[in-house]
């Protein structure tokens, strides 16, 4: 298999693009896809300060690497969830990346330790409040990333969600007709109200395999081990199903998610309508001040329940 562009030996085949690339041309392809996502979805401008949410995994470290190499000003935040050896290893990977690649681009890594602020690790917190670990984890991460972005005056918060993440989430939402969640599936969510940071997903045009290949080819040392809490999760099942379809019929994931985005864009000017909806429904949390649809935000409710140890 030879590179489609320079005809030297290829290192990866991309059936959905009917292409294969050598390392140099693949890196150029990846950066081009990310640059296209940033421009097309008006994610941020060259002078903007970006906060990347990093986990020590391939997607977030690859995203940080790509943004720095594209010349953006990107710092990162790592949230230590307190999942025993898994968190210790992932933290080490994030710190190592920050000390090498990050430091060479004058980028810094902020850290938040759940055990210190929330008083227990994510597994214990989830048990205390009788909620699935992944759901409690999502609430804490969303809250802390948003809080850090606002507190440190970043213009935008970027996450490493890739095409597989978005297609799997869309499949889950469609299977259960959770139409109210579809608005939030845009790769660029505006800072609709005060207290909410703008959130973007610059990797949404790249498949999970492409992002992993970028990490391997560029010697990014990431945690390969799967989070022990994610075992048996629905997201993994949806991804598995989509990848079976993708192998048989290349381009399925892209057609599904990007087709959805096109239809959504035609149906309504998403950013404006979402901002309007948010402004009408959100108000400051009575405890912490972050925007919420209820009197108290889900993070503060969760922490209050964890303190009393009661399930509701």
């Amino acid at each position, binding site marked *: *298999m030879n590179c489609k562009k320079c005809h030297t030996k*290829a*290192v*990866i*085949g991309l059936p959905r693009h009917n292409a*294969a690339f050598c390392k140099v041309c693949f890196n150029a392809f990846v950066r081009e896809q990310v640059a296209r996502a940033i421009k097309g979805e008006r994610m941020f401008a060259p002078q903007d300060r970006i906060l990347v949410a990093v986990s020590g*995994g*391939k*997607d977030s470290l690859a995203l940080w690497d790509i943004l720095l190499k594209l010349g953006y000003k990107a710092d990162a935040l790592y949230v230590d969830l307190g999942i025993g050896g898994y968190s210790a290893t992932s933290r080490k990977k994030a710190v190592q990346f920050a000390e090498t690649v990050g430091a060479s681009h004058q980028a810094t890594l902020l850290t938040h330790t759940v055990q210190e602020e929330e008083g227990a690790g994510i597994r214990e917190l989830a048990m205390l409040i009788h909620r*699935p*670990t*992944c*759901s409690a*984890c*999502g609430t804490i991460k969303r809250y802390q990333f948003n809080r850090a972005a606002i507190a440190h005056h970043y213009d935008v918060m970027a996450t490493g969600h890739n095409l*597989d*993440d978005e297609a*799997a989430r869309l499949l889950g939402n469609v299977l259960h007709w959770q139409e109210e969640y579809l608005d939030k599936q845009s790769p660029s969510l505006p800072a609709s109200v005060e207290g909410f940071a703008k959130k973007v997903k610059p990797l949404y045009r790249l*498949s*999970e*395999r492409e*992002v*992993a*290949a970028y990490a*391997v*080819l560029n010697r990014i040392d990431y945690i*390969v*081990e*799967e*989070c022990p*809490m*994610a075992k048996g*999760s*629905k*997201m*993994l099942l949806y*991804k*598995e199903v989509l*990848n*079976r379809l*993708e*192998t048989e019929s290349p381009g399925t994931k892209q057609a599904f998610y990007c087709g959805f985005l096109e239809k959504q864009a035609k149906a309504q000017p998403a950013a404006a309508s979402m901002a309007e909806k948010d402004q009408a429904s959100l108000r400051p949390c009575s405890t912490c001040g972050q925007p919420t649809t209820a009197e108290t935000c889900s993070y503060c409710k969760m922490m209050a329940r964890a303190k009393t140890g009661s399930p509701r």
Partner: protein
Amino acid sequence: MKVQLSHPERLVEVKGPKRVKELLRDLNLVAEAHLVIRRDELVTEDEFLKDDDAVEIRPVISGGS
């Protein structure tokens, strides 16, 4: 050849030579969810793996909730 697998981590012996594509099919692994790595380098699906090769088949899928 020696094949390193993950989730759970294990080492299996597979008779070569064999194309990467055939190796994945024999192990019932979906190409879109894996990368095949030989001596720190990615190998494409059409490539032949020799009997004395050592490869890692790395899953690329992650994610909770």
